[in-house]
């Protein structure tokens, strides 16, 4: 028989295998992320000092915008295939399966953006120690975004609106993530004390880790009814 965690882990592995089937998708979202970030200097002008000052905000907003379109179709294909139906009929608790899928989505959607963030940080004139901070905080903030995104994807499953509609649900909930994330990153870059902001971001992550899986599970159970 299988232990409680083996089914979610199995699902996580298969999700990654499915994503690796089309590495092009990940590349596309990274390019989108890079392009959003290059828009800002084009808009504001090449003034390196100004760019360095607002670089954390640019990168965090770019991560949110680049990850948003992929949240929309997190479950639509599996719902159509019937995989969601099998997940609901699995002995493993649905919230755990949802957590596994959210973590898989973190690897597929957020990790590529984080790995390319340092390049952009340098382009925006950030110092080296800033890069580590950005990578660490984006990892945590990215997890929050993925958890909020998985809730929104479940809630909008089966609705007739798609595309920007999911942003109306994700963004209001993601604003605290942006606030804490940017402030933590800025604090590190300006040499200030980032621990306070980081603790708040970590607290928010824990809240979402507890809230998002059951809500996504309930949303999908309703959609499959």
């Amino acid at each position, binding site marked *: 028989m*299988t232990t409680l965690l*083996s*089914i979610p882990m199995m699902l996580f592995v298969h999700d990654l295998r499915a994503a690796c089937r089309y590495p092009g998708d990940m590349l596309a979202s990274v390019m989108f992320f890079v392009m959003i970030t290059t828009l800002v200097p084009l808009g504001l002008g090449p003034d390196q000092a100004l760019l360095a000052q607002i670089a954390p905000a640019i990168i965090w907003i770019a991560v949110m915008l680049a990850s948003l379109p992929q949240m929309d179709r997190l479950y639509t294909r599996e719902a159509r*295939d*019937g995989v969601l139906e099998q997940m609901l*009929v*699995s*002995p*493993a608790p649905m919230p755990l399966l949802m957590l596994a899928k959210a973590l898989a989505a973190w690897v597929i959607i957020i990790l590529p953006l984080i790995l390319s963030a340092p390049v952009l940080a340098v382009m925006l004139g950030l110092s080296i120690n800033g890069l580590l901070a950005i990578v660490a905080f984006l990892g945590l903030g990215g997890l929050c975004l993925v958890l909020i995104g998985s809730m929104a994807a479940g809630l909008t499953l089966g609705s007739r609106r798609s595309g920007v509609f999911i942003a109306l649900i994700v963004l209001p909930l993601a604003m605290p993530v942006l606030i804490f994330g940017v402030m933590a990153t800025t604090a590190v870059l300006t040499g200030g004390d980032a621990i306070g902001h980081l603790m708040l971001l970590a607290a928010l992550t824990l809240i979402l880790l507890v809230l998002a899986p059951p809500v996504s599970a309930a949303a999908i159970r309703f959609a499959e*009814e």
Partner: protein
Amino acid sequence: MMGATQSYELGFMTAPRLIIRDLTISRGGYPLITGLNAQLEQGQVMLLRGPNGCGKTTLLRGLAGLIPQDHGDFAINGISAASDHANMMRQLVLIGHRNANAESLDAYHALAMTAGLAGLAPSADHIMMALETFAMAGLAKRQISHLSAGQQRRLALARLALFTAEPHRLWLMDEPFNALDDDAASTLNHLLNHHLESGGAAVISGHGAMPITANQTLHLDQLKGQTQSGKKEDRS
């Protein structure tokens, strides 16, 4: 709602595969199945017949716990959904309309995933054996999106071959014989008979002729509050 306390103390092996008591399920705020009573013993097959939209799929998915019932209750192997969801899910296999093959995986891994989701942990050659039963072994590496509809349906049914070690599971199958060619249909029939002989049971919905002899036939459209089970013919 039947009290969970009044649980079925019958021994595990002797509990009827399926008991349905006064089950009512509504769809779109509209009672589609009203006051259904039925019982299925080990080794029996129940056939669901009726025109489209009469509630065959609703009943099957309701028994799988996917659709909440208005009132009444049902138990599979003496376990009711309300009391123990996880354990209940180990009492059934659901083959729905949709094949549940993850689109961007290849046939082998798609089957491994659905088997894993059902709580099995099949070995590699066990999966290849299951693929072989439906003549899909050659296509193990083929992407799901490159398989024909018939092949995808055979892949979905190949999952059944992995449950030979768990005959207690109730097979809930939604029009399994649709769009199947002859040898796939006979393979499915063979698997089903083997399942029934080892004490399993099945609820199957479908239209027209099906190569199985049903112990009970529910015509869901003429069913208004009382069970109308077909004549009891012993299995030849």
